[in-house]
C-alpha cells in the first residue's frame, strides 16, 4: 500500500530542510500543471511506502497567489493521506494561522513543531499536549536541521493514517462560515492568541532582552553601514565564485578554480578519445570530438561555477541575509519595476549568465523574475570580453581602448535598465507588486542543506540545459563542417585526405550566413562572415573571435603578420607554426595568440575582407553591441528555459533580446551615418 504525505508550512519554516532529510536524493522536481511553480516529490528514504509531496511555502490558503491556490486545491481536492504541517516554533503565533486553515479542511494532519530545540535553548517551550487536546491531532517536536524527532514524526504519521485521526471540529470553524473576510481573519487570530497564551511558555527574561537576531540586524541593516556591508558581501560572493584573480592574490576564486580543473580533466579525456579515433573517418572524429565532447565540455565547464555560486547563495538565503538585501536595495530597484533581489543575478551576469539566471530563483514575484532573467543576459559576461577586446583593438586603433570598453559596459547596463522599464510598462501595465516580506531571524545555515541545494541545482541544470546544449553544438558542428558536396561524392574526390567534410567558408553555415546576412545590412555589416560569427557566438560568445580568425584567415597574410605582430606577442614563425594563415590551428591556442595580437594593436585597414564586411567604426560598434545584447549562449538559453519553465516564455524572452539588439545596433549605425563615423 502506498501513501501520500503532503508537507505544508510557511516560507522559512524549515520545510525544504525536512523534505531533503526525509527524501535524501530520491526526489523529483517538476511543474504543477498550468503554472510555473515547482512541484517537488520524493519517496521517504527509510519508509518507501510513503510518497512525500512538498507543497509551496505559503502564509495562508486563501487563493490570492498561484502558490496558495496550489496548496489549497491539493489539500482539498486530492486529499493526501496525511498533511504534515510544519510550524516554526519560535514564530508560533503567525504560523498557526496556516495551521488553522489546514485543520479547517478536515484532512488527517500531523503538526510538526520545528526548531523546538532553538526554543528550548532560550528556556521557552510549547505545550504540545495542549495543542493535541485543542486540535485533536498528533503534535510532535522536531528539529529538521539537526535531524531530531524524525522517528517520532514517522510514528505519528503511521498512527494518524491507521486510526484516520482527523482534526477536531472546533466551534470556530462553523462560526467562520458566517463572517466576511476581515471577520474570518480576526476570528482566527483571536483563537490563535488564546491558544498561544495557554501553550507557549515564555521566558520573561529572554522576551525583554534584545534578541541575538535584532542585535545582528542593528549592524547589517544600519542606516550608515547597511549599504557598505552589502557591497562587501557581494564583492566576496562574486570574487569567491566567479573571480579570476581572488583578492588580487593571483589565484582564482573557488568556482573558477574548479572549472579550470574540470576543463583540464575533460581536455585530457577528449585527447585520449581523439587518440583512439586516429584511424576513424574525419567526420566521425569531428562528430565525437567537436560535436559530442565539445558539447558536454561546454556544460561541464559551467557546473563548478553553478555549484559554488549556488552554495554561497543558499548560505545567504538560509542565514536570512537575502531578505535584508531586498530590504536595503528595494528602493533603488523599484524605480525600474524590479525588487532588491534583482541585484544579485545582475551582478552575477558580469561573470557568467548561466548561474546568474539560475539565481533569479530567489525572486518571489514572477514578474520580477521574468524581467530579471531577460535583462541579466545583457550583462557583459566573461565570454563577451574577448569580443569587446578584439573589435575594439582592430576597429578603434587610434582611440582609447579603455574608454570605448567602458562606454560599451555603460551602454549594456543602460539598455538593461531601459528594457526592464519598458517590459514593466508594456507587459505588466506598470503594476507595482506588493512588497510584504518577512524578515526572518538570522540562523546559521545547515551545511548539509547548503550542499544539497547546490547539488540539486546542478543536477537540474545538467539535465535540462544539457540536452539543449548538446543537440545544438552537434547541429552547429554539422553546419560548419559539411556542405551539399559532402553527400554527392564531390568533396571526397577533391579533398586530399578524401574526407567528405568541407571548409567553413564553403559549408552549410556559410550558406545560412548568406541567407540571413541581408537582415544585417541596415546595421552596417555585410556578407556572410559576420552573420556566421553571430551564429557561432550562440554556442559560446567567445566563439565570435575564433570564427573571425577562421573566416578571415585569408586576410592574415605574411605581410600583415610581419607589419603588425612580428616580435610583439608571438613571432611570425610561431604563428605560421600553428597554421595561422590557413585558419588551421587549435582553436584554444589560436584564440589566445589572436586576442593577444589584436590587443597589442592590429588594424582592420590592413585586413581587406574585414574592411569590406565591416566598413566603418559605427558598423563595428553596432556589431559589438549586437553580439552583446542578442540571444545569449545556448547554455544561458537552457538556464532561461529552466527558470521560465515554458518554451513560449523562453522564446518570448529571446525575442525581446533579439529585438533589443537589433534596435540598439540600428540606432548606433544611424547615429554613425549622421555624424560620419
Amino acid at each position, binding site marked *: 500500500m502506498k501513501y501520500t504525505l503532503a508537507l505544508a508550512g510557511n516560507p522559512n519554516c524549515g520545510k525544504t530542510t525536512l523534505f531533503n532529510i526525509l527524501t535524501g536524493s530520491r526526489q523529483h522536481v517538476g511543474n504543477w500543471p498550468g503554472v510555473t511553480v515547482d512541484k517537488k516529490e520524493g519517496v521517504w528514504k527509510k519508509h518507501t511506502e510513503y510518497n512525500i509531496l512538498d507543497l509551496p511555502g505559503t502564509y495562508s490558503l486563501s487563493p*490570492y497567489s498561484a502558490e496558495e491556490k496550489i496548496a489549497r486545491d491539493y489539500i482539498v481536492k486530492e486529499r493526501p493521506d496525511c498533511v504534515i504541517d510544519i510550524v516554526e516554533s519560535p514564530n508560533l503565533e503567525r504560523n498557526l494561522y496556516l495551521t488553522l486553515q489546514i485543520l479547517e479542511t478536515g484532512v488527517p494532519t500531523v503538526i510538526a513543531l520545528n526548531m523546538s530545540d532553538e526554543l528550548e535553548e532560550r528556556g521557552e517551550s510549547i505545550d504540545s499536549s495542549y495543542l493535541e487536546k485543542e486540535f485533536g491531532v498528533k503534535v510532535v517536536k522536531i528539529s529538521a536541521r539537526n535531524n531530531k524527532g524524525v522517528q517520532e514524526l514517522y510514528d505519528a504519521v503511521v498512527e494518524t493514517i491507521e486510526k484516520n485521526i482527523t482534526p477536531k471540529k472546533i466551534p470556530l470553524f462553523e462560526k467562520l462560515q458566517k463572517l466576511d473576510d*476581515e471577520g474570518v481573519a480576526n476570528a482566527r487570530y483571536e483563537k490563535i492568541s488564546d491558544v498561544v497564551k495557554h501553550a507557549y511558555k515564555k521566558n520573561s527574561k529572554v522576551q525583554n532582552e534584545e534578541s541575538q537576531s535584532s542585535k545582528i540586524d542593528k549592524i547589517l541593516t544600519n542606516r550608515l553601514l547597511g*549599504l557598505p556591508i552589502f557591497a562587501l558581501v557581494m564583492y566576496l560572493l562574486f570574487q569567491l565564485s566567479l573571480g579570476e584573480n581572488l583578492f588580487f592574490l593571483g589565484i582564482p576564486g573557488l568556482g573558477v578554480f574548479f572549472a579550470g580543473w574540470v576543463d583540464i580533466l575533460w581536455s585530457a579525456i577528449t585527447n585520449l578519445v581523439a587518440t583512439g579515433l586516429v584511424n576513424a573517418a574525419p567526420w566521425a572524429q569531428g562528430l565525437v570530438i567537436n560535436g559530442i565532447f565539445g558539447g558536454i565540455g561546454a556544460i561541464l565547464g559551467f557546473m563548478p561555477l553553478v555549484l559554488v555560486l549556488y552554495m554561497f547563495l543558499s548560505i545567504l538565503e538560509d542565514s536570512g541575509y537575502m531578505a535584508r538585501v531586498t530590504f536595503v536595495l528595494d528602493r533603488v530597484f523599484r524605480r525600474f519595476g524590479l525588487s532588491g533581489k534583482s541585484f544579485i543575478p545582475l551582478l552575477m551576469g558580469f561573470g557568467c549568465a548561466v548561474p546568474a539566471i539560475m539565481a533569479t530563483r530567489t525572486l518571489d514575484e514572477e514578474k520580477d523574475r521574468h524581467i530579471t532573467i531577460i535583462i541579466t543576459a545583457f550583462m557583459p559576461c566573461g565570454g563577451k570580453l574577448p569580443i569587446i577586446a578584439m573589435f575594439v583593438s582592430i576597429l578603434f586603433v587610434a582611440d582609447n581602448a579603455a574608454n570605448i570598453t567602458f562606454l560599451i559596459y555603460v551602454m549594456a547596463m543602460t539598455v538593461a535598465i531601459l528594457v526592464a522599464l519598458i517590459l514593466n510598462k508594456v507587459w505588466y501595465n506598470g503594476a507595482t507588486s506588493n512588497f510584504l516580506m518577512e524578515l526572518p531571524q538570522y540562523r546559521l545555515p545547515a551545511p548539509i542543506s547548503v550542499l544539497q541545494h547546490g547539488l540539486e541545482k546542478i543536477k537540474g541544470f545538467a539535465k535540462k540545459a544539457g540536452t539543449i546544449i548538446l543537440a545544438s553544438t552537434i547541429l552547429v558542428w554539422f553546419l560548419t563542417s559539411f556542405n551539399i558536396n559532402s553527400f554527392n561524392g564531390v568533396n571526397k574526390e577533391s579533398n586530399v585526405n578524401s574526407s567528405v567534410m568541407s571548409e567553413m567558408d564553403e559549408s552549410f553555415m556559410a550558406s545560412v550566413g548568406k541567407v540571413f546576412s541581408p537582415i544585417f545590412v541596415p546595421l552596417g555589416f555585410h556578407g556572410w562572415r559576420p552573420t556566421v560569427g553571430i551564429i557561432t557566438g550562440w554556442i559560446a560568445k567567445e566563439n565570435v573571435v575564433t570564427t573571425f580568425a577562421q573566416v578571415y584567415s585569408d586576410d592574415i597574410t605574411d605581410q600583415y603578420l610581419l607589419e603588425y605582430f612580428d616580435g610583439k606577442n608571438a613571432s611570425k614563425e610561431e604563428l605560421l607554426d600553428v597554421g595561422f594563415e590557413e585558419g588551421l590551428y587549435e582553436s584554444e591556442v589560436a584564440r589566445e595568440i589572436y586576442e593577444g595580437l589584436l590587443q597589442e594593436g592590429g588594424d582592420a585597414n590592413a585586413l581587406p575582407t574585414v574592411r569590406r564586411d565591416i566598413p566603418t567604426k559605427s558598423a563595428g560598434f553596432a556589431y559589438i553591441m549586437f553580439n552583446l545584447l542578442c540571444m545569449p549562449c545556448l547554455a544561458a538559453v537552457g538556464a532561461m528555459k529552466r527558470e521560465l519553465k515554458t518554451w513560449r516564455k523562453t522564446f518570448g524572452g529571446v525575442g525581446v533580446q533579439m529585438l533589443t539588439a537589433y534596435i540598439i545596433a540600428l540606432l548606433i549605425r544611424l547615429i554613425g551615418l549622421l555624424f560620419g563615423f
Partner: protein
Amino acid sequence: MTLCDLKPGQKGKVVSFGTEGVLRHRLLDMGITTGIEIQLVKVAPLGDPLEIRLRGYNLSLRKTEASVIEIK
C-alpha cells in the same frame, strides 16, 4: 495617523486600514488585524521600505503599503 508616521521604536494599535483587494487580504493573512499592536523597528537605509514587528515576528513593507494602515 498612519503606520508611516511612527518613529523607529514607537508602537501603535491598528484602528483600520483603507484598502481593497489583494493587498487587504495579504495584510490580514500576515496578521495585521484591527486592535493589534505594531512597532516600527526601523527604516531602510535609503528611506524605504519599513521594518515593523508584530505577533512576535518582523515584517517589511513599503511606505505606500504602510500609509493605508491607520493607527493610534
